[in-house]
């Protein structure tokens, strides 16, 4: 449902059904709503059968990369000769994205159940849930829920009498966007600075504490119980566009819309329906100018591109961007695009872990050049300079943080060049004081 708004008829409500329902937070309340049936069923199945079911469902990673979940699970060693770990990525920090927060706040047991099933499927007896430090309320809710699940036998040494052992540990982050990157997260759990690691080795071979590890996003894991209960065929049938994108997706919509919130849609839903019907369109008297559809790390779309796109992994790519985390930042015609692109570049400069030169220097210089343009001191040569920098920041670093900084800069120059030109020609009042 479009929390905090009532459900819209064009939504397909699966994961978000109980958002805003405080009773669903408790173990008893969750069981009353059909909770933990999937885990009971799962621990009676073989690990292989579970992985096959998730593979068949077409579920793909909801954190941003869209990697097939069942396939990721199948990379874990078949025999458990050393400890296997599951890590749940609840470090939701991508600007524009606020869906995992609602899953944890309202339906903590949905996530715990998904984690428990995934842990069993990959042969892990311990799951670390990495929750960003700023999420104080989700932390409290999750802590209470893990305690209740343990007291009721859904976790612990003998899950529902099956002999399966699953332990869940909540790990609190401490303010670092980069820890949402899976290898940085593993370092952070190990008590290190959150610097991403070079891959290979991939986590399934040598992950957290050097052991085979699978890392999944909150929303991905929360979808798993529904797949186990209702079947892969049902999940696969939730598809309006491309058969490679199945199921439902939580879309966090923020910025210049009348009803910002979390909407759950079937993959392939027209973006126009999300923007105009569910979110109520732009504020009165305004029109949309731009949409960043997948969290701040993806290319900016023009209004026309957004209005024509189908909302799934392939549909958004076809219109020049990426689905990412489906955190949609909507900007109307009052928005200064140069200023907002500078603000995003500043975000990446602040969050760079500074390991790789291209990122450490590139994000900082991109920010400074944009500052110069906004202060009225830009030059024509700055376009090429920004594009050259972005080129050197794409595909050349350990992780994709610097690529993410380049995405809004390159797409911004391509699609909103006249706004940059206006500052450079001093046809527009400087937005920042000269440094």
């Amino acid at each position, binding site marked *: 449902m479009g929390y905090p708004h009532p459900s819209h008829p064009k939504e397909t409500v699966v994961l978000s059904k109980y958002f805003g329902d405080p009773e669903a937070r408790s173990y008893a309340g969750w069981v009353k709503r059909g909770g933990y049936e999937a885990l009971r069923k799962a621990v009676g199945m073989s690990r292989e059968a579970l992985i096959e079911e998730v593979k068949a469902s077409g579920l793909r990673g909801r954190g941003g990369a869209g990697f097939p979940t069942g396939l990721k699970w199948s990379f874990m060693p078949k025999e458990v000769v050393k*400890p296997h770990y599951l890590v749940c990525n609840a470090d*939701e*920090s*991508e*600007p*524009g*994205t*606020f869906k*995992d*927060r609602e899953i944890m706040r309202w339906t903590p047991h949905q996530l715990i159940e998904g984690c428990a099933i995934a842990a069993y499927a990959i042969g892990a007896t311990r799951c670390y849930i990495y929750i*960003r*430090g*700023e*999420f*104080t*309320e989700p932390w409290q809710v999750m802590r209470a829920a893990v305690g209740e699940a343990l007291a009721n036998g859904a976790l612990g040494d003998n899950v529902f009498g099956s002999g399966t052992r699953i*332990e869940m*540990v909540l*790990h*609190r*982050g*401490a*303010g*670092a*966007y980069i820890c949402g990157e899976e290898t940085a997260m593993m370092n*952070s*759990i*190990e*008590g*290190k*600075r*959150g610097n991403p690691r070079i891959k290979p080795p991939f986590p399934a071979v040598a992950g957290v*504490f050097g052991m085979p590890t699978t890392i999944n996003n909150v929303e991905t894991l929360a979808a798993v119980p529904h797949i186990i209960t209702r079947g892969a065929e049902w999940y696969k049938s939730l598809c309006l566009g491309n058969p490679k994108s199945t199921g439902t997706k939580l879309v*966090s*919509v*923020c*910025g*210049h819309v009348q009803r*910002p*919130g*979390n909407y759950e849609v079937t993959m392939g839903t027209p973006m126009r329906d999300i923007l105009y019907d569910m979110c109520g369109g732009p504020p009165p008297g305004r029109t949309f100018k731009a949409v960043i559809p997948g969290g*701040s790390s993806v290319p900016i779309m023009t209004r026309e591109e957004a209005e024509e796109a189908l909302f799934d992994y392939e549909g958004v790519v076809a219109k020049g961007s990426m689905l990412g985390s489906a*955190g949609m*930042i909507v*900007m109307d015609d009052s*928005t200064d695009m140069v200023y*907002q692109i500078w*603000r*995003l570049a500043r*975000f990446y400069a*602040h*969050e760079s*872990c500074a390991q790789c030169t291209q990122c450490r220097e590139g994000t900082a210089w991109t920010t400074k050049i944009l500052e110069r343009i906004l202060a009225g001191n830009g030059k024509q040569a700055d376009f090429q300079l920004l594009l050259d920098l972005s080129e050197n920041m794409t595909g050349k670093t350990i992780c994709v943080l610097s690529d993410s900084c380049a995405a809004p800069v390159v797409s911004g120059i391509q699609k909103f060049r006249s706004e940059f030109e206006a500052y450079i020609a001093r046809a527009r009042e400087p937005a920042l004081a000269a440094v």
Partner: protein
Amino acid sequence: MSAAHGAGADTHSEAGYEPVFVGGTRKELEQLFTQYPTKQACLLPALWMVQEARGWIAEPAIHEVADVLELTPAYVKGVVTFYTMYHTHPVGRHFIQVCTTSPCNICGAEAVVEALLRETGCGELGATSPDGRFTVIEVECLGACGFATPILVDDDFIESVTPEKVPGILQRYA
């Protein structure tokens, strides 16, 4: 444990430093040791415990954490300074974090920052008000973009803050 702790006491023997990891806090830390295969992995939670107890992470506390986790102080300091939520200097009684990343920026976060700086008396970002009551900082995305502008006052996450709401919110914090 007690031997290791005794040895630690020498290395952080700054006058008046009271160790954090004693009594219940020590037990809590030992409970943490069972949840991770290494002591090093308890570093982030241990630093949270220090900040909870002391309000910030001072140099002698870094030494104490290093001792109890069998790490070097330099290593611990490297980790402390990587993460923005650990305070390496004292802050006001109430610590206010306000989100100003793009989604909040386009919805008026800058006006919220101005109102907070004015009403708390902090005057500028990062400064503590003269009465010691508040410190206000600007932070990157708090992950509640649909509820612009969110702020965190200590552990209280407050959504949809506008400049008009600021005085009423601040009244709740003595």
